[in-house]
């Protein structure tokens, strides 16, 4: 559906609330369009365009809550959806963990919307992919990739007077380039709010170089190695730490941040003192929404400071029970880095392994946040400050918490995309000692 302006959204939500007879009522609306192109074997495979919208009404009587949704916005439909949510609330069992809706909040003005992305045409999408394909074809390589853009708005209002509004755009691009004989493979990924920052040609050139240089990989023994993780590889490990920072899980004794005797690791130094991780919805390189779905403001929050666990995220219920500020879990995060480039990190490495991408990450033990997964699409042996030769891929078993204790050096921060969650992050490339590879893989 078209993006509603702030005034249009406010007027629509006011009208919905005017139909409410519940003790409390809250209305959320989401809408937008997304477009994508997929390609493989140097040719377009599928592509599509999806347009959707949803209006959600939550009505509460005491601790009984009912929710109903609709995607038609005429007056009769709006009245119907409000009535239905009220009927559902009357039928629902009492939820002892119900927390009344929020009072009005103050939000910073979001900076997540870029017009150039919102007005992408099918031709621009195809042109961006054509530039990528040209690079792979010119180098006699085979490319497979994905280009996806989104434009969306969201708004919410409740009977206590809270109102929030946001618009956002995003474009994610990834490409895997392989040699024609399948013996080499390289990868690059980019994510932006602003489509004009995306250079599919440059990203594909990197993936192509990795592909060509990764053919004829040698096998080296699994074991503990110094690794340089590129940001895309580090992202899929670091995000697991952030996903695990939920206060209730830790308080209940069932996360990696729990301790004996019902205590938690909040306030403890768990990682190297160069590790600082925070979220900031107004970071110009990685802006995110300034409010979350239940109306809480997203503010700049430090999660790990100089290796110390500074904050947990809370549901409103758990924060009330613990009598602490209900900090919502972040939409993204930023890890502080240094000034060195990836090349500088390689140049300063006597012996080590460069990792382009990690893949199929799964929890092995939630107690220690032990994860397993594999390297992929460009793994190289470094000796005396230079990439010497490509090596076969490895399976690792490693905890990102242990890994950030074994930190050697951080490079300059850049925006990257997690291949696991599709989230965007600002992360430096990082050099880690004693990273645990447990077996070899023949996969290319």
């Amino acid at each position, binding site marked *: 559906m078209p993006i509603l302006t702030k005034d249009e959204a406010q007027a629509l939500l006011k009208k919905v609330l005017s139909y409410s007879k519940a003790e409390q009522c809250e209305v959320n609306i989401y809408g937008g369009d997304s477009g994508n192109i997929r390609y493989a074997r140097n040719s377009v495979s599928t592509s599509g365009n999806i347009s959707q919208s949803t209006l959600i009404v939550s009505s509460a009587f005491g601790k009984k809550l009912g929710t109903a949704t609709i995607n038609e916005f005429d007056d009769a439909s709006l009245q119907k959806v409000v009535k239905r949510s009220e009927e559902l609330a009357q039928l629902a069992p009492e939820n002892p963990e119900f927390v009344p809706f929020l009072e009005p909040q103050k939000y910073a003005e979001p900076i997540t919307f870029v017009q150039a992305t919102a007005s992408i045409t099918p031709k621009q999408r195809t042109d961006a992919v054509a530039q990528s394909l040209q690079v792979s074809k010119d180098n006699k390589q085979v490319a497979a990739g994905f280009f996806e853009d989104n434009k969306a708005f969201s708004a919410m209002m409740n009977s206590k007077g809270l109102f929030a509004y946001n618009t956002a755009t995003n474009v994610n691009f990834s490409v895997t380039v392989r040699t024609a004989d399948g013996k080499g493979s390289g990868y690059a990924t980019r994510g932006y709010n602003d489509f004009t920052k995306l250079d599919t040609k440059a990203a594909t050139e990197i993936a192509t170089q990795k592909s060509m240089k990764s053919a004829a990989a040698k096998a080296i023994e699994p074991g503990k190695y110094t690794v340089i993780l590129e940001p895309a590889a580090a992202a899929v490990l670091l995000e697991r730490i952030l996903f695990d920072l939920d206060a209730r899980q830790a308080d209940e004794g069932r996360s990696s941040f729990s301790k004996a005797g019902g205590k938690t690791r909040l306030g403890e130094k768990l990682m190297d003192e160069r590790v600082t991780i925070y979220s900031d919805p107004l970071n110009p390189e990685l802006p995110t929404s300034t409010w979350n779905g239940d109306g809480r403001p997203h503010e700049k929050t430090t999660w790990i400071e100089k290796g110390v666990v500074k904050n947990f995220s809370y549901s409103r219920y758990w924060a009330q029970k613990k009598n602490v500020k209900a900090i919502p879990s972040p939409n993204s995060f930023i890890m502080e880095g240094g000034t060195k480039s990836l090349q500088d990190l390689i140049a300063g490495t006597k012996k080590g392994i460069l990792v382009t991408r990690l893949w199929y990450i799964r929890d092995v033990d939630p107690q220690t946040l032990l994860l397993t997964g594999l390297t992929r699409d460009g793994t190289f042996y470094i000796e005396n400050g230079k990439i010497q030769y490509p090596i076969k891929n490895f399976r690792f078993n490693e905890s990102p918490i242990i890994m950030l204790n074994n930190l050697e050096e951080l490079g300059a921060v850049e925006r990257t995309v997690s291949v696991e969650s599709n989230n965007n992050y600002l992360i430096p490339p990082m050099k880690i000692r004693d990273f645990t590879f447990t077996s070899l893989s023949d*996969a290319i």
Partner: protein
Amino acid sequence: MKRRDFIHLAGMGASAAVLAGIPSFGKAIPPERALETIDVAQKKQMADVALNAARSKGATYTDVRIGRYLNQFVITREDKVENIVNTESYGMGVRVIANGGWGFAATDKLDKDSIAKTAELAVAIAKENSRLLSEPVQLVPQKGYGEVSWKAPIEKNSFEVPVKEKVDLLLSVNDAAIKGGANYINSFLFTVNEQKYFASTDGSYIDQDIHRIWPTFFITKIDAATGKFETRNALSAPMGMGYEYLNARPQDKIKGPTTLYKGRYDMIEDARAGAQQAGEKLKAKSVEAGKYDLILDPSHLWLTIHESVGHPTELDRVLGYEANFAGTSFLTLDKWESKKFNFGNKNVNLFADKQQIGSLGAVGYDDEGVQCGRWDLVKDGILVNYQAIRDQAHIIGLTASQGCCYADSWSSVQFQRMPNVSLQASKEKRSVDDLIKNVEKGIYIIGDGSFSIDQQRYNFQFGGQLYYEIKNGKIAGMLKDVAYQANTHEFWNSCAGTADESDYRLGGSFFDGKGQPSQSSAVSHGSATTHFKGVNVINTSRNIG
């Protein structure tokens, strides 16, 4: 819904507003609305509007899917109902070939004008993309079936069962676990009804009604003194069944170190056992890393089959269509063409099907209007076939599609997805005890746990729920911190035999992820308990200070 969203939901008890914000959940509806259906004649009319609009803009082939996807989630923890959500997602996806290339568009506005515009947009996208094609799409011929229908053979529609009955069941499950010593339990009942209508310019109008159910729980037991905790997940399987799955009869239970379930499930009994076993896991011996024989229960082996057999035999992966995300496959065409590639040894027979009653993959027709069947993938250890759809069939010399096309929503474009892939049970009479008594040093693994495999499906690592040490042909006690790592080819060549058909059971997943944007599909994998020799086992315990 994506697997990650479900995990988030499972862990956090997400609000209905959060659920509705995830497009594939659809919209929340009152429970009784799920029993309403949409008139077939009305769906045919809407489909014809799209078929005609696409044709008039120059499409040479069009298919239309009108989908109504109903989900119900009942979510509880300990003595609380966290959420009850009913969602409905209803809309249309139009796929066309124009100028030799595919185009797709979808809408949830189903008036004639919106449908026609969506079909026109699909054609415009196909034409725009055709300039990047290296060769035109080639569809293997498919006859039209006219107006036909298929319904899953369920006994009791889950959506007809009152929500209160479901809530009472889950709270009884939780009570059994807490009384059994669990500190926490999260339990879920997840039911699905897909009402799918397919129409194409080949002359098919296919109406289908598909049901799925998945009851499950996660138990946590904490040792307060040490701060250590262990978990035990349900040994249920998601099934292509109605509510009858939750009515277990004595003949559905298999007795052993823990009770296992065949075709029906006793959730309360499993929760009681689970609470006790989570406590036992805390005190269990940490495994010594090394080579062990593995006896794998079907509640565990389904996932190993899924990852190491199901995925590498997907033809789109073999050809490179998934190279950027899910990956490619080690089962390259030359291995299949040689007719002598030993995927496994002679004990290994693996078949694909979309027909097994009660399986998640069972449908009458796939999402491009092809009637479904059964075929061999690995015969006496030799790779003999793949999984293909209409635009791939010609590549492996097939004259018809194998019916493996699926989309997880009306708003997603259909593509090649895994059918049920299963390991044939032994034709000779053989019990699980017969397998165990031949093992000198081994581990008997029950339930699925951690899983990870590389992008060409060579190197994998799996954990489970319960690990029992086998010493000199007998079960010697419980182990923990177990995961096994192997190479697919070596693993299936170390198969020392399976139990017989009487032990054959289905496991499966609601959330097999593939594609960009990522789509989920539900798929089952059957097997009897199976013996593998000399597999590398690692110890997964660590210390973070």
